[in-house]
């Protein structure tokens, strides 16, 4: 696939995601040939679609398709997925029930727009590598969305007679955010080039950690406005925390990686020149 084709795909999917979310976006992705793209060009399909979900803040149930494809199951099914803390969830192929405001009702989820629901334990032998990589791209896109919001705010917001982007403390937080996201992107590209389960696990851990760092730095830069539900930031924060927990949090996966190298007595060099 050449650059022009790639750019065209990105723009087409971005347009679809900008207009819709949930079941409507599932339908739109079907029409755009998501299933064929995933089957024929997974190394394009997964990074493009999942990063865009993060950047645009929309959502679709396509994670089910990535898991299904990895397990040799037909696309279009719904798979019970592990969540951190030993819980299991299903990502329904429908819209979330009309969400209550998040402060009301104990049954609400942190990210009430997602059609997630708790489920009975599922298959412990699911092939999660590809789905972890996909979630990593989604987390990366979410992190980038938060960085874009914080950067825009830092340039526009004036205090003490100058834009807050001119203060070194603010600049360094945003720089740290970019470092974390770029590092995570390198691990995701590595997991795309060599999609072994351990490389994918590390990429999900790096992306989860980077997006959590992005949320912390960017919310601090956004300050008061970033604490309101009137600014878009909080959607991305909710998404970050939820996606981090899905298929193993950065903390879970990092600990697994540590156990792995301790048991092996060896720190594998997964990427080589």
């Amino acid at each position, binding site marked *: 696939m050449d650059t022009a084709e790639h750019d065209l795909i990105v723009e087409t999917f971005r347009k679809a995601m900008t207009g819709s979310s949930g079941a409507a976006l599932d339908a739109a992705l079907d029409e755009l040939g998501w299933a064929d793209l995933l089957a024929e060009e997974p190394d394009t399909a997964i990074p493009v679609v999942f990063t865009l979900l993060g950047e645009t803040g929309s959502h679709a149930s396509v994670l089910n398709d990535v898991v299904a494809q990895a397990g040799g199951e037909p696309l279009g099914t719904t798979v019970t997925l592990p969540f951190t803390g030993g819980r299991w969830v299903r990502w329904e192929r429908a819209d979330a029930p009309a969400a209550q405001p998040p402060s009301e009702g104990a049954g609400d989820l942190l990210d009430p727009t997602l059609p997630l629901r708790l489920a009975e334990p599922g298959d412990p032998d699911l092939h999660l590598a590809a789905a972890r990589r996909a979630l990593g791209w989604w987390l990366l896109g979410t992190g980038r969305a938060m960085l874009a919001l914080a950067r825009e705010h830092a340039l526009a917001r004036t205090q003490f007679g100058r834009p807050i982007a001119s203060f070194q403390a603010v*600049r360094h937080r945003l720089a740290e955010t970019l470092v974390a996201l770029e590092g995570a992107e390198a691990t995701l590209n590595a997991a795309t080039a060599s999609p072994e389960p351990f490389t994918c696990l590390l990429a999900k851990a790096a992306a989860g950690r980077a997006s959590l760092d992005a949320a912390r730095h960017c919310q601090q830069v956004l300050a008061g406005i970033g604490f309101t539900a009137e600014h878009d930031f909080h959607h991305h924060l909710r998404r970050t925390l939820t996606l981090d927990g899905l298929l193993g949090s950065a903390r879970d*996966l990092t*600990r697994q990686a*540590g156990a792995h*190298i301790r048991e092996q*007595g060896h720190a594998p060099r997964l990427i*080589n*020149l």
Partner: protein
Amino acid sequence: MTSPVTEPATIGEFRAAVREWFTHNDLSAGPDHSLDGQVAQLARVRRALYDAGWMRYGWPAEVGGLGGPAALRAVLGEEVASRDLAEPGIYSMIEVLAPTMISYAPPALAAEMVPLLLSGAEQWCQGFSEPGSGSDLASLSTRAEPHGDDWVVNGQKVWTSLAQYSQRCVLLTRTAPGHGGITAFFVDMDTPGITVRPLRTMHGIDEFAEVFFDDVVVPGDRMLGRPGDGWQLAMDLLPHERSTCFWHRVAFLYERLERLVGETATTTATTGAAGADDADLGAAYLALHTIRCRSHATQRRLADGARLGPETSIDKVLLATAEQRLFDTARDLLPGAVELTDPRWRSEYLYSRAATIYGGTAEIQRNIIARRLLDLGKE
């Protein structure tokens, strides 16, 4: 020692051939971890690798090399670091010194001198930083004034690694005001008027020195480039430092992580603390994996002809962060080793504190990222 029998055609073949060679050629360091011992070991490793041909790969034929991509040097350095054969900081100095000579020295001078460096016959140093010019390198004030065909140098350098062992120095001087008034010379360290005073460092290995220049006469044909090229020369080092050098350092850090894993296995057998420690080990490993992936991508871009720029400040921050995390983890998981019982962990732990200082502080890197990559405007 014999030369390689067959020309390695790919990086993978090169790596395999180097590994095979190392199985028959044990260059392990002796028990002397002093700086004298490290420098002697470095010269020994270079000599052996040069005689066997490995050290010449990735360098052009004009300076005694055998050609091939720079990645071959990264691979060789990784194999050296993985076997703990040479301290990676001083091993990698060649990666900035030799390219400078190739790009800026008169060709005959480069052809004469670079093999002396590659073969371990000589050590060279880099006279850049000054007492008044650290992060603000362009403010340097060591003067060079023309005197007939020669130049006369007066001033002081600091943080000059291995100056006390060096036969030559790549020296930045002031010949006119501003960034365009910096001029570089290739100076023989035995020239009258040069005084070297090693700095005492807190980790006990005094690799840095102050270098004083009092009416030091440098022949005009030892100028690197033309008058005023010095700033560009310094900027041109960055892609070399931030590709092969970083790869070597990452390889060294993987070796140290494995050493830590080995030593932790012994302590956790007695304390049963494995579960808690896994999170720390995993975080250290993840940080190393992240900079390795990033550095891999950077070297790919360089090999594809990209010009490296401010985005390598991200590599620099990732590497420094990973290094400090690793040694923090070592101190956490080997309680008392740094403070009481293990001089090597102690020295390397202390040295890791400098990772966010040398080569441009972490703050300078973040300033560059904010200004050049995030386009946040002026401070």
